[in-house]
């Protein structure tokens, strides 16, 4: 079990992600935010449990389904909300949007729209940290669908060859878009695939944030002490559609309700009292999370838009200005 302060943080974080994503769904229904929206509903325990096992200065990579990772990496909630709203105060100054919520200052290397782009990038950070003699590690989050993409394999193979502290976190949420994971995998589990690289790999429940925490902590500890890469496959379920607007027609109701019975927020609430967090304490944490989310979106919705010409900024560190604009 994590230390008490971490436990509190985990609950706070879990509630924040859940309420944040529920708000996103509302906003999507109202068409109040632009662009594609991929929520993290159902996988909250993974981001929370893994990040609880990390330090702030560890590196992660995320995906287009980036809100949960960013929140758990302590990126400012209002900056996330503002980014999704496309405002100048957004964490990416409005240039990224929902699919690209990333804050380098908080240890995020990026949130990629290209499936499977992250592992190789995290690999490089892990290599450089090891070269420098630091004990920072790198964690790459990706989905079950990503394991078919070639660059995932290239990164896994190099990570093992270089023996660098890269934790590959596969969020197996049962689907890649509208394709079921039990169909698209040739093996029983994603963890089985790592035999190709003689890489330690496990399949672990991804619904209970403490189980996630334990599995991640073990691996992280080995890596801090010089260990090489590992993969953990966390099994969760995608409660939302692939993106907001997806009707989920392909998800059988029985399957959904079975998964909902193990909703990570439900499980966490059930465990709380054993952890000395009584009903009141949990209610207070929930209320605070609601307030934080309300506040973040309220401020985001009122934040200033970027200037149109900001489209031309920060393409390069240095480049002739008049070569960016064109006529």
């Amino acid at each position: 079990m994590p230390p008490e302060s971490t436990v509190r943080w985990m609950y706070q974080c879990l509630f924040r992600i859940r309420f944040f994503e529920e708000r996103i769904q509302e906003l999507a229904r109202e068409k109040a935010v632009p662009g594609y929206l991929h929520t993290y509903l159902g996988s909250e325990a993974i981001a929370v449990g893994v990040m609880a096992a990390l330090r702030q200065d560890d590196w992660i990579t995320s995906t287009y389904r980036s809100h949960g990772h960013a929140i758990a990496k302590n990126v400012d909630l209002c900056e996330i909300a503002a980014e999704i709203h496309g405002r100048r105060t957004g964490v990416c100054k409005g240039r990224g949007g929902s699919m690209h919520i990333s804050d380098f200052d908080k240890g995020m290397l990026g949130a990629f729209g290209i499936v499977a782009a992250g592992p190789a990038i995290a690999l490089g950070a892990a290599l450089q940290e090891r070269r420098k003699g630091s004990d920072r590690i790198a964690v790459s989050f990706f989905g079950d669908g990503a394991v078919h993409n070639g660059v995932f394999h290239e990164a896994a193979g190099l990570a093992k060859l270089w023996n660098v502290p890269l934790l590959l976190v596969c969020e197996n949420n049962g689907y890649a878009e509208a394709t079921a994971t039990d169909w698209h995998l040739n093996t029983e589990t994603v963890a089985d695939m790592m035999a190709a690289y003689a890489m330690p790999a496990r399949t672990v429940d991804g619904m209970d944030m403490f189980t996630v925490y334990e599995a991640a902590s073990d691996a992280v500890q080995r890596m801090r002490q010089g260990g090489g890469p590992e993969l953990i496959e966390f099994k969760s379920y995608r409660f939302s559609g692939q993106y907001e607007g997806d009707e989920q027609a392909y998800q059988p109701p029985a399957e959904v309700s079975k998964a909902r019975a193990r909703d990570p927020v439900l499980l966490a609430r059930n465990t709380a009292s054993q952890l000395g967090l009584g009903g009141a304490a949990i209610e207070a944490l929930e209320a605070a999370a609601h307030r934080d989310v309300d506040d973040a979106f309220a401020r985001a919705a009122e934040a200033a838009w970027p200037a149109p010409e900001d489209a031309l900024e920060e393409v390069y560190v240095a480049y002739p200005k008049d070569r960016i604009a064109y006529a």
Partner: protein
Amino acid sequence: MRDLTVKDAINEALRQSMEADENVVLFGEDIAGGQGRDEHPGAMDAWGGPFGVTKGLCTQFGRDRVRDTTIAEAGFFGAAIGAAMVGMRPVCELMYVDFAGVCFDQMMNQAAKMRYMFGGKQNVPMVMRTVVGAGFRAGAEHSQTLYSLFTHIPGLKVVAPYSAADAKGLLISAIRDDDPVVFLEHKRLYMRAEPVPEAAEAIPLGKGRRRRAGRDVTIVAVQRMNLFAEAAAETLAAEGIDVEIIDPRTYSPLDEEMILSSVGKTGRAVIVDESHPRCSLATDIAALIAEKGFAGLKAPVLKVTGPHAPVPFSPPMEDYYIPSPERIARRVREAMDFSKRS
């Protein structure tokens, strides 16, 4: 003729092509959807691709001919190439052109070069269907056009239709074509409707279309930019400037004659392409005019393009990013003013 949207016109072209030839087979990610949940009634054709373009085809033709794949673009584009050589006519969907980087080798070094490199004995009759364009608030990795990357590569044909009728007729040609064809669909055009012939009528690749006749300035407009060129032309007409609009439709091969004869008549050219400016279709067409149409030019060959920057997400920035009718009109006036000056 009934009105069809671009999206439905493409669906119809696919359907008719599949009805006509059982070797026409589709590959792509969730081009049907629901794979692995076939026993569940909602699964079949749950998606039809992210824009629903292929919806219904799996119900009609089955999973053997509408093949949902894993997220392995290099793998299934490679497979399409191999299958094409032995009798299939695969139509492969790359969900967004922005993902071209993960399977560019297949298109550039295999599909495009095999016939040539191996002495002309084999053909690769495949189509890459993919989605391009900004304006969808989809950010830097789901908004590119990348027309020029494909056009640069010998061995590929490149098609980018603007209208629904063109989309249908050109896709039919692309599928029947014995060379690999990259067929680029603009996400902001999918919902535009116009009358589309019911029959499977092919429109030949390599022939442009004059969308508007005019005397003073030729606008060569790339795909969605035809819409904005038309708007600009209306504004300019009110000012007495008579614009001709050429939609090349096919970029490899390019209908050079149509462009040159129009510029030969007007003496002025503005090329409009939402792509990044460098080594783009815009520079390609401008260079063509500067070389083969020079004698008749009364003004510099002007361009309206996106900036040399990735596509930003936020609406005000993205709107600024995309060439607007106003910017097009301004450039046309510049072309007019220049010739008055000199």
